[in-house]
């Protein structure tokens, strides 16, 4: 079933910062958690980033004070510093789950960076590779938890 995506939109912003810094904001846990959950009534309680092709990020967030209840797991499908990042994002929480593909383009412009974001609802059966990558993340997380507890 290949057809133009039904769910899709673009957003564009220009930031007064070089592409390197905008790239870092997407690919370092320290920075990502400072903008990924802008709702003042909510907060981030966990953020990990594996900054490489095939890596991704894991965010845990929700209403204050716990900041729990929602998980956002992204896989970096394309990782081309500091130009192009394509990520498959799975968000899950209480009785909801959502699959998105985000494409981030960073274009150097006078005095800063233009960021072009395309967000698409992902249709079609998820590939085995995606499922494997997603589960590998979870298993790594569990292993880390067990290691910390031991």
């Amino acid at each position, binding site marked *: *079933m290949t*057809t133009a*995506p*039904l*769910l*899709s*939109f673009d*957003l564009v*912003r220009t*930031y*007064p*910062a070089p592409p390197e*810094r*905008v790239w870092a*904001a997407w690919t370092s846990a320290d*920075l990502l958690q*400072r*903008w*990924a959950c*802008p*709702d003042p009534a909510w907060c981030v309680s966990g953020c990990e980033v594996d900054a490489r092709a095939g890596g991704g990020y894991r965010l845990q967030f929700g209403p204050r004070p716990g900041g729990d209840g929602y998980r956002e797991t992204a896989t970096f499908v394309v990782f081309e510093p500091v130009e192009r990042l394509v990520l498959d994002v799975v968000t899950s929480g209480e*009785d*909801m*789950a*959502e*699959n*998105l593909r*985000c494409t981030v383009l960073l274009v150097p412009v006078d005095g800063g960076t233009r*960021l072009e*974001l395309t*967000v698409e*609802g*992902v*249709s*079609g*059966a*998820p590939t085995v590779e995606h499922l494997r990558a997603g589960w590998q993340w979870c298993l790594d997380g569990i292993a880390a938890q067990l290691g910390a507890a031991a």
Partner: protein
Amino acid sequence: MVHLQFAALGDPTRLAIVERLARGPTSAGDLAAPTTLSLPAVLKHIRVLEEAGLLTTVKRGRVRECRLRDDALVAVAGWTAHQQALWSTRLDALGSLLEDL
């Protein structure tokens, strides 16, 4: 209901079904054919979409015909508005962070 509809659209298989039906009504069997899913698995997804008010089905003999409801397009617009607001707020927050660094 809106929440149900977003949950229904959030699944890749169900979104593919809605995309196919946006081109016109078809049978459950035709929806299953291009996928690796069994007919019962596809019928389960169809039921979720039906409960969310996104499509209707009519049994004609041995064939179950599926058709998008007008509500589906409203739901698609709602999904887009919701996601657009979320990512727009995020990109603004990213802008504030970059100014503070």
